[in-house]
């Protein structure tokens, strides 16, 4: 299969199955479980296709005559597409029992999920601002609706409305920024903009810089960085668990993929203008996020708040890109993967043990889990340790890369800030462990979910561990080095 073929088939497949489920979902033959399996199979096949193209550097403009060089399929987009598909796949696979037992998960939710994935896939392939905007809006719109799936819950409706209003408002900044950039460069194509920047002097680039700032606002909003992320706790709380997991694990990465592409291609040369802003944002994001996470009483909200903190770490690495050491950008991709697999695992376990009852999981609800379900609590412990950046997990290696790149770029003090917020995160992540292992509970053992979901949880936990200690010397399975190599390929394919 040629790369071009894959790049066309993957989004097409997502779109076709979405439309298929949409058309036939109301017939009695295509029940919810059939829609579920159709979605899973679609995700699985397209994942296999996308993943086959991540291990070498390549870059192709897809049908440049038809699409006018707006769509590019390179290792970068292949890597991110694989991540999205894997994330959606894992979310669905782990949350199987949640989806089956929840009334409000109808066939439309799979349609929306597939549409949003289609948007993300296009977003990561977009080589042009307008395409990216449309792709972003496709996925955002679908996610807005997914947040409000539970029509009977006031909280979900509130979350939906809040997210919709604020999100649409934030998107308008993007449009304005794009307009400014177009006014100066007469193009929205990222390569043309890069060419314009490299051939003119700073005086004739002012609108590009201003436009970039406006686009940054949208990006910061979508990744829930402080001060634009005020929506995050309410929305993550209001959405049902699999959707929260999907937003935190997958949607955020999609936004990062676009931010990374535009930053690397066009804006890396403005680093002395942007870096102070990004770093300031990173510090505020990390500490406000930590503060939010510390005060929460529900595990779900704590994980939501801590996802803000993780955005802060990634922003530090963004600022370090300008120093041109070549390590910061791969570090971001590695960290995104590390965060993604741990967050999906942690949220996944919550959805695995909640089933349908609408109750938000508090810390107290986890009391004594280790006694009744040692394997589940063991897996959750691994995910939490990884999120906290404890050595021997993939999260530690991710933080290690990010801090190293920050120090190398001369931002040692920000690495220290990062270490401080990692220190605070120890508190709230270990609090869950304390509740699982040290508190007694009188609850009786209940059987949770499907065995097959649990196998996926365990597999992710193993990946987390192997990503922390793995080396190809042992057992000849590719380890940390291989992952690092893949993220390097992804970055290389951009240039």
């Amino acid at each position, binding site marked *: 299969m040629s790369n071009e073929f894959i790049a066309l088939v993957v989004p097409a497949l997502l779109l076709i199955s979405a439309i298929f489920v949409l058309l036939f979902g109301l017939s009695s033959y295509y029940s919810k479980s059939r829609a579920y399996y159709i979605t899973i199979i679609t995700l699985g096949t397209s994942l296999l296709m996308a993943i086959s193209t991540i291990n070498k550097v390549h870059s192709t403009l897809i049908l440049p005559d038809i699409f006018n060089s707006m769509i590019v399929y390179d290792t970068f987009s292949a890597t991110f597409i694989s991540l999205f598909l894997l994330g959606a796949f894992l979310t669905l696979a782990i949350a199987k029992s949640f989806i089956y037992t929840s009334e409000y998960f109808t066939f439309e939710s799979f349609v929306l999920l597939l549409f949003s994935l289609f948007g993300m896939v296009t977003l990561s392939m977009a080589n042009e601002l307008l395409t990216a905007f449309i792709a972003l809006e496709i996925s955002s719109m679908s996610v807005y609706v997914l947040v409000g799936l539970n029509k009977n819950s006031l909280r979900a409706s509130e979350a939906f409305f809040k997210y919709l209003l604020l999100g649409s408002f934030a998107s308008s900044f993007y449009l304005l920024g794009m307009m400014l950039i177009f006014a100066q460069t007469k193009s929205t194509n990222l390569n043309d903009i890069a060419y314009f920047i490299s051939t003119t002097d700073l005086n004739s680039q002012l609108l590009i810089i201003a436009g970039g700032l406006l686009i940054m606002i949208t990006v910061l909003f979508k990744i829930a960085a402080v001060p634009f992320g005020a929506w995050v706790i309410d929305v993550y709380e209001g959405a049902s668990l699999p959707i929260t997991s999907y937003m935190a694990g997958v949607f955020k990465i999609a936004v990062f993929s676009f931010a990374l592409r535009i930053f690397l291609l066009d804006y890396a040369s403005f680093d002395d203008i942007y870096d102070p802003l990004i770093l300031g944002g990173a510090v505020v994001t990390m500490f406000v996020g930590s503060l939010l996470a510390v005060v929460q009483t529900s595990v779900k909200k704590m994980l939501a708040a801590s996802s803000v903190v993780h955005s802060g770490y990634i922003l530090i690495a963004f600022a370090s890109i300008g120093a041109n050491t070549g390590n910061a950008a791969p570090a971001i991709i590695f960290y995104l993967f590390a965060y993604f697999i741990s967050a999906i695992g942690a949220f996944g376990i919550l959805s695995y043990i909640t089933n349908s009852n609408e109750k938000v999981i508090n810390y107290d609800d986890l009391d004594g889990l280790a006694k009744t379900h040692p394997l589940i609590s063991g897996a959750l412990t691994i995910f939490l340790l990884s999120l906290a950046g404890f*050595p021997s997990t993939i999260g530690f290696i991710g933080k290690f890369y990010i801090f190293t790149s920050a*120090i190398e770029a001369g931002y040692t003090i920000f690495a220290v800030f990062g270490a401080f917020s990692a220190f605070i995160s120890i*508190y709230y992540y270990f609090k869950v462990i304390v509740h699982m292992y040290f508190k007694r509970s009188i609850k009786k053992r209940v059987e949770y979910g499907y065995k097959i979901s649990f196998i996926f949880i365990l597999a992710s936990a193993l990946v987390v561990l192997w990503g922390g200690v793995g080396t190809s010397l042992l057992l000849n399975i590719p380890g940390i080095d291989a992952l690092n190599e893949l993220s390097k390929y992804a970055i290389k394919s951009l240039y």
Partner: protein
Amino acid sequence: MNILSLIIFLPIIVALFLFFIKENVKLVKIVYIIVTLAVLLLSLDLYINFNPDDSMQFIESHIWIAEYGINYHLGVDGVSLGIVMMNAIIMPLIAIGLYKQRDNGGYWINLLFVQGGVMGAVLSLDLMLFYLFWELMLLPIFFMLGLFGYARSNFIAMKFNLYTIFGSLMMLIAILYIAVVHKEQFGFYSFDLNELKKLSFSSMESLLVFGGFMLAFAIKIPIFPFHTWLSDTYRSAPTGIVIVMSALMAKLGVYAIWRFLFSLFNDTSHLLAPYFIGLGLFGLIYFGISAMSQNHLKRMFAFSSASHLSLIVVGFFIYDIYGLVGSSYLIVAHALSSAALFLMVGIMFERTRTYSIDELGGIARVAPKFALFFAFFALSIVGIPSTAGFVAELLIILGAFTYNIYIGFISAITILIAMLFMFKVISKVLYGELSAATANFKDLRFHELLALIPLALLILAMGIFPNFFIHKIKPTAKYCSTNLEGPCYVK
């Protein structure tokens, strides 16, 4: 597989498998004893094959993360050999001594993890590898504090965890900083101690990086202002963890100062040595006085242990062959004595259900064997002649005298403080009137004797024939103290 890797990973891997038979406590205990004895045999083999004329040996080096120059690099020299040996000796004896107590599988599984972690941290010669084990060691201790601790155990486990991780994170930044400096100077990342010792730092840089490392080590030991976690944690911790903390973990902190700080920042260490000697001596007195005023037996021994660790710190910072040999000897000697003493406190608590010194008394009348061993170990901590502690303290004081006559004088006197509180304990606990708690005190059982006798014999042997043990440390020490210009070891 190299013998060092085997020593590290045998307990860890077995512990992983034991999770699945956690319910069968008896089996877990037996497996624990077998595994720790196997580690002991391996360490004995290591000890016998260790060439006394050489410093770093049994080196094993593989590339772990190539991109960042992180290696799986292990090796053992005279000083680390001592710690490996005492770790291997103490761990099986805990299970033998406490055989009748602690009927919970998790307890022993966690101890196995600790053993592997400590071994790994002692033997690693790569900073990242060291950091990995250093942090990993913390996790089982955290779990044991929370699961098996007394009184407010959740709070104390969390406090201990946060306290030590804070230090570790600052050390992590320092480690990363060094690696980046290495890249700036040599063009590639490295975390390998051999590579890093070639680096040169500006004085400000090295002071800050030194501080980052020192914070982590000072918290673990603990050195004077960083001791506030100490008394709570020791009071609440179960016996196994108290032994691990006082005998292994704290020693690891001092060892790490010597291994990493002295070889990476030789000049800075020299520059700061007077301050740390001062801090150490102050800690020696401060912890000694704190120990005197305690009424809780475990807290008292906690402070006593901290006071001796301050002496070990002083010994290392004296930068002299006597100080170094004395300190590494005291590491082992004090570990053996304090492990035995905490074991006996655990045994005592099982019978009397109290740790309060006021509620105890007259044990010598009803339990002569217990009294004999208790007095012996208490005195061996003080360092009476013919015990290992005596030799070690003598060497450190000799070193202190060559460093500066006043320092020598002060450290010689401060050791007497230990006498004061140990005699207080002996007289109050073993003699006097029998109390309600001690009236039905049972003397030592067979398995308890089995655990204590080897420790007592070893302490005596180390006290009477010190040369037999010191000749393994000497080449390492000689190299370090004569070669003041360069870092502490070569290979």
